[in-house]
């Protein structure tokens, strides 16, 4: 299992459209993937789960992956969360 802390940097936070993209990415991995914030942990392959965290701009989250391809998953998803989202500000 790998857990990594990161900060969401985009205006609307993890709104539905970036979240849909994130899920599509996360779903490509066999590993279980979760996002944790303030002791709440949701399945990161579920749109409703992500939306219910209502992650806003500048908030810290923990990205967790567990499974055979966990390290690639963390790498790709982190780069999406930290850089990719900026474009849609």
């Amino acid at each position: 299992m790998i857990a990594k802390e990161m900060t969401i940097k985009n205006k609307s936070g993890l709104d539905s459209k970036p979240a849909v993209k994130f899920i599509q990415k996360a779903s490509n991995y066999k590993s279980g993937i979760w996002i944790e914030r303030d002791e709440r942990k949701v399945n990161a392959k579920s749109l409703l789960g992500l939306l219910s965290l209502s992650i806003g701009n500048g908030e810290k989250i923990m990205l967790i992956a567990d499974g055979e391809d966990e390290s690639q998953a963390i790498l790709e998803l982190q780069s999406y969360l930290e850089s990719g989202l900026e474009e849609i500000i």
Partner: protein
Amino acid sequence: MDRLFLKGLPVSSGVGIGEFYVFKSKKLEINQDTVDKRKIKNEHLRLNNGIKNTLMEFQDLKNNLGKKLVKQSDLIFEVYETILGDSFFIEEIKNLITEKRYYADNAVDICIKRYIKDIEESDNEYIKQRIFDLNDISMRILRNMSEDKTVAILENIYHKQIIAVRELTPSLAAALGRKKVSGIVAFEGAAYFSHSAIILRSLGIPVLNDINYDFVNKFDRQPVVIDGKDGFLIINPDKSDVDRYRTILKSNIKKQKELLSKKFKPALTRDGYRINISANISDIGECDEAREKNADGIGLVRTELLFAADGKIPDEREQTLMYSKIVKKMGNRPIVIRTADVGEEKTLGYSDVEINFPIQNSRSIKNSLVNKEQFLAQIRAILCCAEFGNVSISFPLINDIEEIREIKEVIKLAEDQIEAQGIPPFKRIKIGAFIETKQGMNNLDELLPELDFISLGTNDLLQHTLGKDRKQSRVKNDEYFNPEFLKAVQLCISKANQQNKSVSVCGEMAADPAAAVLLFGMGANDLSMSPSKILDVKGILGKLSLAETRQLAEASLECSGIKEVKRILAKKLGKFKV
């Protein structure tokens, strides 16, 4: 009967006179009993069918909205489809049925309400807008699971009515749009950038948001007038109200006719200065409309939407044919073909059709550069259609010079590949860029020398420039009149003009007659807009002199806020009924 004036937030303009109809969403009885153990399987089945039917219903709605709305509805429906296909969500509901022995409808209701509660507690205004979508989904699943699947209340609605709703959901907006109702007033759900408002604006139906449903629901079947421009709802209007609004309605129709009669004249100011009015198009139908309205060219071919209408990414040959068709239709008029802008907002729908842009990153030209084969193929297709007319190529969301250099290498490669196939060398194609980010704007000085022209994508630019302290729910349609934004746009225009590069403004701003006047006054000679707006813009520009537009632009740039800009514009343009 008392005559009442109510003020709401105008989100879609136009005037409507008719009978008030208070829409009551059907209360669905939710069975809160405990399920008999033997029937649990049956409830799972009912859930599956409910979800499947809801998915199909959304597909139907999407298809029935017609081609014009494909782009907007795609945005909405991808989110819906993802939620309905969310296996964790469905598993959760199933667990509630199995473990808590809830009936399927009760389980859906409880499950979605939990998510809504979490979202309500947050302070993320963007995500809060999604609550309307979740309610919409929940209501539809419940209805699809119930015995009574009819939408009986909708059946009584007809075009001469103005409809009051508590919460305007996108699917209700679409359904009312299809009924061609005379107007809609909503308590919630119809903020300017809500999915519902977007749909109704494209259909030209007047809409107000923030109209208190609990207050107006007493006036069912009373005569009303809706004014989607100034934001008024008049209940029990007197004769003078009705006469006044009837005159406006008539003059709107007359204005449309008048404009139509002038359509074949080029766009000129009153004192004879020429303005290029081009069209933004997303499909061949809009290209026909552009020709019909005598557009001076096509300022933007949104190729990603051409593909979306087709349901898949066409191969290179198919793309060449598509583009050539447009090019030939436009004769020798200039056409700007923009490579596919695929990303967050403009995702291609049709998830069940094989559509395979391996791009799942955020919106950026970098996606295209990473996904080079597809990018190359598109560029080759554009280069190949260039021989039929006056074609330029442009690229979305350009931020910096590095991107342009990389793009140019790809173009060079594409040219070499075409030549290698033994096709004789063709004319050099003009290369442009869409400036729609702050970064792109800041880097304009070094970008311009590398380009033949630029296009300002004001919709995205607006988000980037004013995005900072803006709550989505409060964004109004006139934000582009913000003097700060006007200054930013003017800076781009004058930089391009100084370097002798043509600059065209694309986006909702160019399609707003009053804003178009300012843009022309600021030195933008090319405006590109939805073909349906061409006649309006031509009309207003023909009533002013060049000097007048310049004065208006100068005065607006000095204003302290949106209100002041609008006051100046209203004073000068009011008599033309813009």
